[in-house]
C-alpha cells in the first residue's frame, strides 16, 4: 500500500479481449479491487495455515485455498 501498483493498466489492457481503454479513475478502482481480493486471499490462506498449526503461510496453503490452481 505504499507504492503505486505498477503496470496495472497495462495488465488489464493486455488481458482485455477487445480494444478497451482505462481511465485513471478506474485504474484506482481496479487497484481497489485487487487489494480487496488480495486481502481476502491472504486471510483465507492465513486461516488455512493456522489449521495446520503453522505460523507461516506457505505455497501449498495458498494453493489449497485458491480455486484456480
Amino acid at each position: 500500500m505504499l507504492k503505486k501498483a505498477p503496470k496495472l493498466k497495462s495488465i488489464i489492457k493486455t488481458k482485455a479481449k477487445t480494444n478497451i481503454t482505462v481511465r485513471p479513475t478506474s485504474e484506482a478502482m481496479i487497484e481497489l479491487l485487487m487489494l480487496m481480493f488480495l486481502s481476502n486471499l491472504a486471510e483465507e490462506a492465513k486461516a488455512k495455515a493456522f489449521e495446520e498449526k503453522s505460523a507461516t503461510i506457505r505455497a501449498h496453503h495458498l494453493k489449497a485455498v485458491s480455486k484456480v490452481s
Partner: protein
Amino acid sequence: MDPTEDLSARVLLTQILSTETPRTPYTRSASKQLSASATRRSSSRLRNKDAVPQTPKAILKHSQIHKLRKSISMQSLNATRRVARSASFRLSNNPPVNSMLLEDGETPRHLLKNILQTEPVSTPMVHGRAASDGRQPSSADSSKGRSIELSVLDLPDLTIGAASTQKRLNRKRHLSFDVSAFEKRLDSVPDLNENKETEQSSLTLSSPTLKTPFVEVRTERRGLRRRALLRHRISVAGFDAAVDRRSMEGETSRWSLGKTTSSEGFTLGLSTLCDSDITSDIIHCDKALCAQPDNATVAEEEAGVAESLDTVREEEENNVEAPTEEEGEADSQNEENAAVRSPSEEEEAAAESQTEEEQDGVDSQIEKDVVPDTQTEEEEVAGDSQTEEQDGVDCEPEEVAEAVSQSEEEEVAPDSQEAAVDIEPEEDAAKSPSEEEEVAPDSQEAAVDIEPEEDAAKSPSEEEEEIADDQSEQEVPAEEVEDDLADSQPEDKHDGKPSEEDAEQLSEQEEQDLEHTSRRARRSVGPLVVPVTEAAGDLDHATEEGWSDGKSKAPSSLHMGSPETHASYTDADPGAVKENSFHLPELANETKDRLLNDKSPEEEEEEEEEEEEEEEEEEEEEEEEEEDSDAIPSKTPAFVRQKMSFFQPKPQNIQASRTEEAIPVPKPKPVRKKGKGPAKKQTDLPKSYLMDVFKHFAKTKVSPDVYPVLNDIMDKYFDRLAEDLETYALHAKRKTIEVEDAELLLKRQGHVTDMVPVEVLIEKYLRMEQRKLLIPIATSGNVVIPKKR
C-alpha cells in the same frame, strides 16, 4: 394597607370593639343614603359632638345614633367598601361605638336581627356587611362564619375562580369592589357559587392563596389530560404506521440482502459447475465430445476444449491421473476463458486460445471437436482408431489449422494441442509445412493445429524446405507440448510417443523426414515407452516458442540427437524443465556423436530430433519465454537454443545444431510475435510489490516460495477481472472502463453492500491521490474536485 387587606370580620370587629367610641345611632330610615358619608361625617361630628356632651343621656343618644348610622350604612353600601371604609372609620371610631354598643345594651345580636329583618339579604352583601359591621361582631362573626362556611363549602368551586379573585384581592379596595362587582355579577352571571367563592377568597385573603394553586393544578391537570390524550392518539397511529413500515422494510431488506449475497462473482462460480459437467463427459466418452460442444456455450466450449485437451491428454497419459487432472484443468479452464496459464496450462491455453479466436461459434465448436478428437486420437494412436479420428479431424483441420495458425504466433501452448495433432501428422506424414493451410491439409487432424503454429513461426524463410520439416517439427512440438503436459502432469507413454515422432520429424529434413516421421510415429507410438517421458520433457521445450524457425534446423540435429535423446529425455523428464536445458547440450553432444550412426531405432532419432529441436527451440524461446514468464524457465533455454540452432544452420547437420546448442547464443527474436499469447500473455506484478502487499494483508509470516503460486493466482485473477470489466463496459456500450463498472463488480462480489458503501472501501484501502480522484472534494470558490458526475 395591611389592616385593610386583613379585613377579616373578626379582626375588624375586634378593632372596632377596641376602638369603639360611644355614639348615638342614627335612625335607619333617615340616613340610608347619607349614611355612607353622613354617617362618617356625622359620626365624626357626632364623635366630636358626642365627645363633647358628657351627660349620660347624650352619650347614650350618640351611641345609639351611631349605631343606627352604622347599620344604615351597612345596609346601603356594598360590603367591601363599606367594610373597608367603615372599618377604617370604625377602627378609629368604633371603639366608642363598640363600647357604646355594649354599653347601650344593644347586643350585636339585636342589631343583626334588625338588619336581617329590615334589609334584603344578598349573600354577597352579607359578607361585606358582616365584614364592615364592626358593631355586630356576632353578625359579623356569623357572616364571617357564613362566609367562612360558605368559603369552606365553596372551596372546590373556588378553585376555578381563584385566579380572578386573587387579582381583585390584591387591590386595596378589594372588598368594596368585590362586593359591588359581585353583586353585579350575581345579577348577570348565574354562577353565584363562583362569585361567592371569589368573594370569599377575596374576603379571606389567606384562602385564595390556598385555593389558587388548587385551581391551577386543576387546569394543569386538564392540560395534561389533553396532552396525554393527544399523545396517546399519535402514538397509536404512529405505532401502526411504524409497524407497517417495519413489515415493509423487513421484506425489502431481506430482498436486498438476498440480492447482494446471491450476486457473487459469477466468474468464479461458473467454473465448478462447468467443470463437473465437462470432466464427466470427457471421462465417459471421448467421442461424445463432438456432440457436447454443440450444446455447451461458447465460453464453456472454450473451457471445455482446453479441458478436453488436457483431460484427454491426461487420460492418454495417465489413466489414473487423468480424472483428477481433468477436473483440475477443467476447473481452471472453465474459469478462464482467456486465462493466462502457467506452463503446465499453456497447452490448455493454447487450445483455448485457438478456440477463442475462432469463437465465432462454429469454429469454436469445430475446434472443440478437433481438440477432443485430437486428444482422443492421441489415445487411439496407440490403438487403432487413429484413422477414425483423423478423418474427423481432417474435416476440420483446415479450419482449425487456420485458426491455429493465427494463434500459433502468439501461442506456444497450442503445441499442446499439437501434441494430439502430432500423433495424427505422424501418421499422415503428409502435412504441408510452410503455410498454415498447407500444414493443415497435410497434417490433417490435430497435427494441423500444431503445424500451423509451428509453420507460422517458420514461415519466414524455411517454409518450403520445411515442408517435411514442418511436419516433423509439428510432431515434435506436439510431442513437446505433450511433454509439457507430461511434465506438469505425469505423462504417459502416449505423449512420449508422439513427441518422439515429432522429434523425428523435425530432425528430418524435407520429405524424407516426413516419411521418416510417419514411420517413426507409428513405430514410436507402440514400442516407445521410456522415451515417451523423455520426449515429453523435451517437447515441452520445443513447443514453447516459435520453434518452427528452428524446426528446419532441427531435423538434422534431431537426427543426430535421436539416439541420444533416449537417455537425455529420461533424465530430463524427471528433473525440472531446467534440467532439460542442461541435458540438451549433452544430448546435442551425444547427437553429434551419433549423427552418423543413424541408429536403427527410429526412436533414438526421434529423440535426438526432439532434443535438438527442443534445444533450438529453447534457445529461441529463451528470449521469448523469458520475457513471458518465469514459470517456463527450463523450457526457454533449451527451446531457444534449439531454435537458434535451427535458424542458423538451417541446412546444417547436427553438428551445426550441436554447436549452437552447446553455445547458448542469444537468439534473435523469433519471428513469431508474442502479442497476446495464449492465455493472454502472462503478466506479472513485481515481486517486491506483490509480496509486500500480501504480507501486509496476511499479518503473519509468509514464506517466499509463495511467490510463483501467487503470481499464478494473480494472473488468473486479472484475466477474469479484465473480462468482467470489459463485459460491463461493453454492455453499457462504452469502450472505456469506467468507475461505475468497477463499482458494479465490487457489488457483485459482495464487497460493497447496503451497509458498506464504496467510499468506505476507497478510504480504507487506497492512497490519498487515488482518493482525490475518486471522491469529490469541495474546495473554495464553489468548486468540487473532481467533478462528480
